[in-house]
């Protein structure tokens, strides 16, 4: 530790008046085969009972940092580590992971990858048993941990029977049962649906209220995380600590700077930044939906038409104007979002027609008497609670699953009667995990496969595949095995393979599941561009903010039926419908829907309607 860093750490410990539980000093991690360290130099302390939110742009090494906190890195995951991490004064690079486990409990992203045994009770007892605790103590710890996350009543069940949120709560209980004063959670809600996220944060909220555990939280879903956070540590893109302070200092005080750096902010904060740029006085910066609503209720609308932007192309296209918020297109910052055919009105020709479709699996009806029409150039989101049938609907339209004949027309043909080669010229399907659909040994062949299937001459195959490579930024990777691409590149390639045969319709199943915000944004920007060029997009997703930002039209599926089908803003204006379908309002809607003083704001659903970036 350099004197400077030591001094800073001491100062922070002194400020808190407590000895730090965790001390990270100038931590650098270089993975085997990587040329740069990520993080490069992270420094921060965590005091007992403190909740620290760790933020940083994609690729800054947050997850690597998490693994160093209990010594898994470098002890189980080989990497070169510089600087130091000490928990309770123990160096995590040299103290055995098993010993550290009594000081640091870990919760990982994938709930399925944390299960070992056959019942909830055995699962929670697994850690204490490994520590050779007496049986009474094991049971006492297991009971207390399960009770704290509300799963004690289900202790005899197989963890497979829990929902995603339930399994992640179980993982938290398992970490609690280790008795460690520090919990580290690495993207604990990235694989969960909105209901699961709520469950996990309800459990974490109670934990924080009890105050007996310190928490280091890495999370991209800040809307939920901010409410339990004491302190925020921000790493820059190289993984150097650039901010360390309480929520007010860092998130409220330096929000614009963080946003610039590529750190994801709560949606409410992003909205407030845009409103500020439009001339609103919002001080301090609101971070949660409740704070944002209160802040705009207190604020007067900017008197003079503020230098915002846009005779709201996006807003206007849906027949709504947000005057006083978004005028003046001088900066040309208006999003190029296309909303042709919003709400099914106007727009191009019908490209998908579903009539009275019923799909059964075994004896269960997954879809019942579904009707759906999609016009060329639309961007349609299909949403619904788990098991509502939304993925089945998408798969039926794309011919991925067998369907009854004569119920669907996709690009003018019935998927039930059309061979896949002909169908791939009309609709492309992108699976949740891009790796599942790779079939060739090079990126080039992956793209060429769809063209060769069309029996095109090899020269044309080469030409069109090369064009696709260029379009998706993969030229330099043409001869790489698809599995060796980065996550974002794999995703782009999977979209490319779906489109290469010339399909004018693209169907995507949960394309942002388990991904960080930056990669999700990259994909959505790509889809937006494709949509602007005329590709019809259908997407199934749980991410309501994503839906409101990008989809012009939303189809709500509930219990096998389409219960609503309208323009996205109309759907999310209907609280009753959203609740009935088991959905959650996106954060921006939650903040603005009840606003009394500014009716124009109360109707806003997407950030873009609030104006350009700050």
């Amino acid at each position: 530790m350099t004197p400077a860093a030591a001094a800073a750490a001491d100062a922070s410990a002194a400020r808190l008046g407590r000895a730090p539980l965790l001390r990270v000093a100038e931590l650098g991690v270089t993975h085997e085969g990587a040329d740069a360290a990520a993080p490069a130099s992270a420094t921060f302390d965590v005091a007992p009972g403190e909740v620290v939110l760790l933020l940083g742009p994609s690729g800054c090494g947050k997850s690597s940092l998490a693994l160093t906190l209990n010594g898994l890195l470098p002890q189980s995951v080989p990497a070169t580590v510089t600087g130091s991490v000490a928990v309770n004064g123990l160096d995590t690079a040299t103290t055995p992971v098993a010993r550290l486990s009594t000081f640091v409990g870990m919760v990982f992203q994938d709930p399925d990858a944390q299960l070992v045994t056959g019942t909830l009770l055995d699962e929670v007892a697994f850690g204490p048993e490994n520590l050779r605790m007496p049986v009474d103590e094991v049971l006492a710890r297991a009971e207390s941990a399960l009770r704290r996350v509300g799963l004690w009543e289900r202790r005899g069940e197989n963890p497979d029977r829990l929902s995603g949120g339930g399994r992640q709560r179980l993982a938290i209980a398992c970490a609690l049962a280790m008795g460690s004063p520090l919990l580290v959670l690495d993207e604990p809600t990235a694989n969960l649906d909105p209901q699961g996220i709520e469950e996990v944060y309800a459990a974490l909220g109670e934990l924080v209220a009890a105050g007996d555990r310190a928490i280091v939280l890495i999370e991209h879903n800040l809307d939920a995380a901010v409410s339990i956070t004491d302190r925020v540590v921000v790493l820059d893109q190289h993984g150097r600590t650039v901010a360390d302070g309480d929520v007010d200092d860092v998130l409220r005080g330096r929000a614009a700077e963080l946003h610039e750096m590529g750190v994801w902010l709560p949606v409410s904060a992003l909205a407030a930044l845009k409103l500020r740029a439009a001339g609103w006085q919002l001080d301090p910066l609101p971070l949660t939906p409740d704070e944002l609503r209160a802040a705009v209720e207190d604020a007067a609308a900017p008197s003079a038409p503020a230098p915002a932007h846009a005779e709201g192309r996006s807003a206007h296209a849906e027949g709504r104007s947000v005057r006083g918020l978004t005028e003046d297109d001088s900066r040309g910052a208006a999003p190029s979002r296309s909303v042709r055919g919003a709400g099914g009105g106007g727009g191009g020709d019908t490209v998908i027609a579903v009539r009275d479709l019923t799909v059964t699996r075994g004896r269960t009806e997954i879809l019942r008497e579904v009707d759906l029409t999609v016009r060329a150039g639309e961007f349609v989101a299909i949403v619904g609670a788990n098991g509502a049938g939304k993925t089945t609907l998408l798969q039926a339209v794309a011919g991925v699953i067998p369907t009854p004949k004569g119920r669907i027309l996709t690009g003018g043909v019935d998927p039930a009667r059309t061979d896949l080669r002909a169908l791939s010229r009309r609709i492309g399907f992108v699976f949740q995990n891009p790796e599942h659909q790779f079939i060739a040994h090079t990126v080039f062949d992956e793209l060429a496969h769809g063209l060769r299937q069309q029996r095109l001459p090899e020269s044309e195959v080469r030409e069109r595949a090369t064009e696709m490579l260029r379009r998706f930024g993969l030229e330099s990777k043409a001869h790489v095995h698809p599995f060796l691409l980065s996550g974002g590149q794999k995703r782009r390639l999977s979209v490319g393979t779906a489109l290469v045969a010339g399909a004018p319709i693209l169907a995507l199943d949960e394309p942002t599941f388990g991904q960080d915000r930056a990669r999700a944004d990259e994909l959505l920007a790509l889809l937006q561009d494709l949509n602007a060029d005329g590709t019809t997009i259908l997407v199934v997703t749980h991410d309501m903010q994503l839906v409101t930002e990008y989809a012009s039209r939303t189809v709500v599926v509930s219990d096998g039926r389409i219960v609503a089908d309208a323009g996205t803003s109309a759907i999310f204006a209907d609280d009753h419908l959203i609740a009935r379908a088991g959905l959650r309002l996106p954060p921006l809607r939650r903040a603005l829907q009840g606003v009394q003083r500014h009716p124009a704001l109360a109707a806003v659903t997407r950030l873009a309607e609030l104006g350009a970036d700050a």
Partner: protein
Amino acid sequence: MSVATFDPYASTGAARGPLHGLNPLAKLGAPLPAMLLLVVVRDLGTPLAFLVVAYAVLLLGAGLSRLLLLVLGVAVPAAVAVIGVGMSLWADAARVDRSVEVVSIGAWTLYGGALEVGFATALRLAAIVSLALVAGLTTSGPDLVRASVQHLRVPYRIGYTALAAFRFVPRFGHELDVIRQAHRVRGAHGGRGPFAAVARWWGYIVPLLAGAIRHAERVALAMDARAFGAHPDRTERHPVPFRRRDVAFVALFWLLSAAVFWLLFPWGLG
């Protein structure tokens, strides 16, 4: 029992009988000599005798359940019939007893000797499987692991890792389904016949393995983070004792096995 519903952790079935109270190692060890010797017998009587013994032990000891009745009443007899007939047809007619002709179609004749060979083989397999079911239908995965760790000095790291690996099975089943769906949509390796099928399955292996390795790494990290392998042993909340009744069960079963082999002496040396 399909992969999708197979739960190695479940305490086996609602019905419980005396067999559930025995040590899993006793239930494995008792029929083991008979199972090994059955591999080398050739007659009909010995496997039939052990089939009766296994059925008796299971029906009396395992507690009646639908699964048990289906296995003993339907699955095993059906397997004996299918394998018996199949093996009879397959047996080399030149090397069997040709004194009895059972069916004759044109130049082809099914001899009684062939049937005898076929059904001897089928009964032998059925007897071995039924004896294995004594432990298989009345023991849960964790109990077997615990008993092995406690009495056979199997390192618990291996036992519990194997148990964790069972969790992979349904997950991979599901993942394989999705991969097959995705490859079908992409039109990968279409066509019929064994070569296309091999090419198709080969294509599933890379994504499946990539997913499997990643998953295994994550599970290993999660287990390490919970102090797995920290000490030479770990707390055992469920001791699986080897009691006097286990000794008695093994001794009786061995005596019975010896008696059957003594009486029927199936090796034709006498």
